């Protein structure tokens, strides 16, 4: 991305403006939410049929290798309702979907609802932290680069960002494990090192409330870092471009000519305006974060939904795959809506545009 290029407000954001023209943001939000219902049901239905079309029989996977005969496989299929025609299974799935039941996960041996209730919050926690870190780091680094354009710092940061942007998440995650967990503790004997996996320590239950909070944050560091670094690199590039465009505007020049300190010019006058296009990227980045969790959760043994869906696909655990996809789709739709609303709130020009 070259300097001076900013992210344009997307079409959805423009429609927010139209929605606000009537002065009723909540009606707009409601309309978007109602519109999202057929969308996510449609996505889930497509996924339902696609996963059923994939070759492979989940009943066979429940048998030991080399054991079992066709009668047992057929009985397992009957017990799990897999013997029924696909359209009947679809109708049953729709029924369970509307009752919030979502069926039974035969790979996890538990109702899908319970599986999701246990894993979805974990993925949200990891994703939320990673997004916060990615945007925080990306905005700060991008701003520094823009303010110090063509300086040594700008060049060095560009190379570093390119490195993290180019590295596969899987490799980066393993390097973090090796360096900040194993090497830091065993070889370098640093006072601070981070656990290689899990959300909590084995003695979590014995810790105080403060200890538990610290333990969870301690376990978040590596996966959140692995998930956020490449995102932060991308955001920093966008931020650099946006900031460069803003600091060349007349009002920034005016602020400087008034004799305002540079810090005030950047942080009070330029930053807010440069951030507007970045906000819309939340909607774009949330699906990217969710995609990233599939790998990151596996490397760090994080009991989240990304890893769960990945494993469920291998096990042909149809109900879990479909329900998991539904929740991911729903989250992405909501995130896009959130980004549009935030964009309208954050950018005063949008607010007044309809009155021009």
């Amino acid at each position: 991305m070259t300097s001076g290029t900013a992210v344009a407000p997307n079409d959805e954001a423009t429609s927010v403006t139209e929605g606000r023209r009537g002065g009723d943001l909540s009606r707009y939000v409601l309309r978007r939410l109602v519109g999202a219902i057929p969308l996510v049901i449609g996505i889930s239905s497509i996924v339902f049929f696609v996963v059923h079309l994939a070759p492979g029989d989940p009943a066979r996977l429940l048998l030991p290798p080399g054991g079992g005969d066709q009668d047992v496989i057929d009985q397992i299929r009957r017990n799990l309702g897999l013997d029924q025609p696909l359209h009947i299974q679809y109708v049953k799935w729709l029924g369970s979907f509307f009752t919030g039941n979502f069926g039974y996960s035969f790979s996890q041996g538990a109702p899908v609802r319970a599986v999701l209730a246990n894993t979805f919050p974990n993925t949200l926690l990891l994703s939320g932290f990673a997004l916060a870190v990615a945007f925080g780091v990306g905005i700060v680094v991008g701003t520094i680069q823009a303010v110090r354009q063509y300086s040594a710092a700008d060049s060095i940061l560009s190379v570093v960002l390119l490195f993290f942007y180019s590295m596969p998440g899987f490799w980066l995650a393993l390097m973090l494990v090796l360096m900040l967990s194993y090497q830091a503790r065993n070889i370098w004997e640093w006072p601070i090192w981070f656990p290689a996996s899990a959300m909590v320590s084995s003695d979590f239950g014995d810790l105080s409330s403060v200890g538990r909070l610290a333990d969870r944050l301690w376990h978040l560091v590596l996966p959140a870092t692995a998930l956020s670094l490449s995102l932060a690199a991308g955001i920093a590039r966008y931020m650099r471009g946006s900031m460069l465009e803003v600091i060349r505007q007349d009002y920034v020049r005016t602020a400087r000519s008034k004799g305002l300190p540079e810090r005030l010019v950047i942080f009070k006058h330029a930053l807010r305006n440069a951030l507007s296009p970045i906000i819309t990227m939340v909607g774009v980045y949330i699906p990217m974060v969710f995609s990233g969790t599939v790998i990151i959760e596996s490397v760090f043994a994080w009991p989240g939904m990304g890893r769960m869906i990945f494993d469920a696909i291998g096990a042909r655990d149809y109900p879990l795959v479909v329900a998991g996809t539904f929740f991911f789709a729903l989250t992405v739709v909501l995130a896009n809506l959130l980004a549009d609303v935030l964009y309208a709130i954050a950018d005063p020009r949008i607010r007044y545009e309809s009155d021009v």
Partner: protein
Amino acid sequence: MKNLLLVFVTASVVACGGSEAPRNVSSDPFCQRVIPAVDAWLADARIAHPTPDDDRYGGTVVVGTNGEIADGMNAAVAADYNATQHHQFVNLMTLIDFDDEYEPRGYLAESWEFAEDMTSVTFRIRQDVFWHDGEQTDAHDVAFTYLAVTNPETAFPNAAFWSHYVPGEAGVEVLDDFTVRIRMRPHSMPLDPFRTVGILPEHLLGDVPPSELKQHPFGSQCPVGNGPFVFYTHTAQDRWVFEANPAFPEELGGRPFVNRYVYRAIPEQTTLLAELLTGGIDVYVQPTPEQAQNVLDAEQLDLRRFVGRSYMYVGWNARLPKLSDPRVRTALGMGVDRQSLVDGTLGGYGRIANSGVPPFHFAFDADLESPVSYDPAGARALLEEAGWVDRDGDGVRENAAGEPLEIVLKYNPHHLRQAIAEVMQAQLSEVGVAITPQSVEFTTLIDQIASTRRDFEGVVMGWNAEFRLDDTDLFRSDRIDQPYAFSGTQNPTLDRLIDALSTAVDEDVSRALWVEYQRAIMEEQPYTYFYFRDRLVGVNRRLQGVEMDVRGEWTTVKDWYIDPASP
């Protein structure tokens, strides 16, 4: 933007706040009923059976593997290795177990007696074993379990276990509250299923229809066992936590030494190794051969090694004309240096297999000379004898009809299986056979080989051998349409031996038959057997009392203790 960041950070911190209970308790009514009962019983048991005054008692031991206990604790519907290990040694109890010479000894059953004609076995059940909700374990639980696993509607995964037993009500009789008789037809190793299948609580599962046992929350959400460890919590894809059972019978060793046993599922093996090296886990089950050296190099760790039950092989589709001749299949084995694979890909942690009879089996014959020892010249000669000659000089042999000896060899993405496929490709090209390795996703591959389409020519696959071997489902002619008889073997000699083996009660007779069977398999070559892979386990030296062998990694888990002198 500051507001936006604040929203994310606040939401995340709130979400990870210290208020989360360290225990997942299912909202299912069954769990809501049984978990408080277990908690109450455990609290009482701790008072009634105080921990002995010994430094070895206490602490938490963490075992890490790369897979979940997929089938949970419901022994009526579970078959995977990790699950059965936990039924046998952790949460449930089996009627018998094996001593360190693999001889049966009493466990939940204090004794047993066979009828003279070997048509029944009568078990006498211990009277000092209690379910973890306080109910006594008795013969009715054994009868209930037997009825459940032999009921076709349950779909017990290892159906072959019960092929010689009388199913249903006619097969089991409760003689008194602690004596139960099981009826069967005379056959070899009749106690073996009772070593593997954990007994289940009738008072909790007795009213569950057999077809619904698989879905019942008992399995993965709130199991109630009677073994040395009491279920505490399970977080899917993360961990199972068990606590010591203070009331475990003294005669069986009494309360486990550790207070808490944690099983962790960590899918990435590099992470597993890092956790072992940094003390996050105490035991790493099955590190890769490359990682074994890392374990050996770490002074705080110990590498355990024992012969494994699983063997790797290439299965050939003998239904295809080009693979129907045993001489061709034999030549394919002769053209591959299997020892180099054991040395190269397993780091020597394995041994060549010549049949599915494992080295720990009583009838394993190490002196049998394999017809598929590495011999490229012999392979060439055998292929020529079978009519496969390179007629056009392109380096690939053809039959009389001019069809080239080209074989697609499928494998699922796994580095060891890929190595076999690629080594076969390289080495068999030297004898004029064109192997094309093809990677196929595991579930799809199973579908291709096990469905009636038999959509494969050769496949790299692995099986687990049990103590009681039975190749009926693999090689008996009348099973040819069954899912795992994909080799298409139809050999009257094998049929005769399989039948004779399954009913041979006398061990000497059985041993002779097994030797004959191993020879017959070597001649038939339905598979090119590659190797038995050793089980490797990385163990932190702070953990003492760890004995592992082919019975499994968890065999002595109740005897593990943390060295009081360790930091």
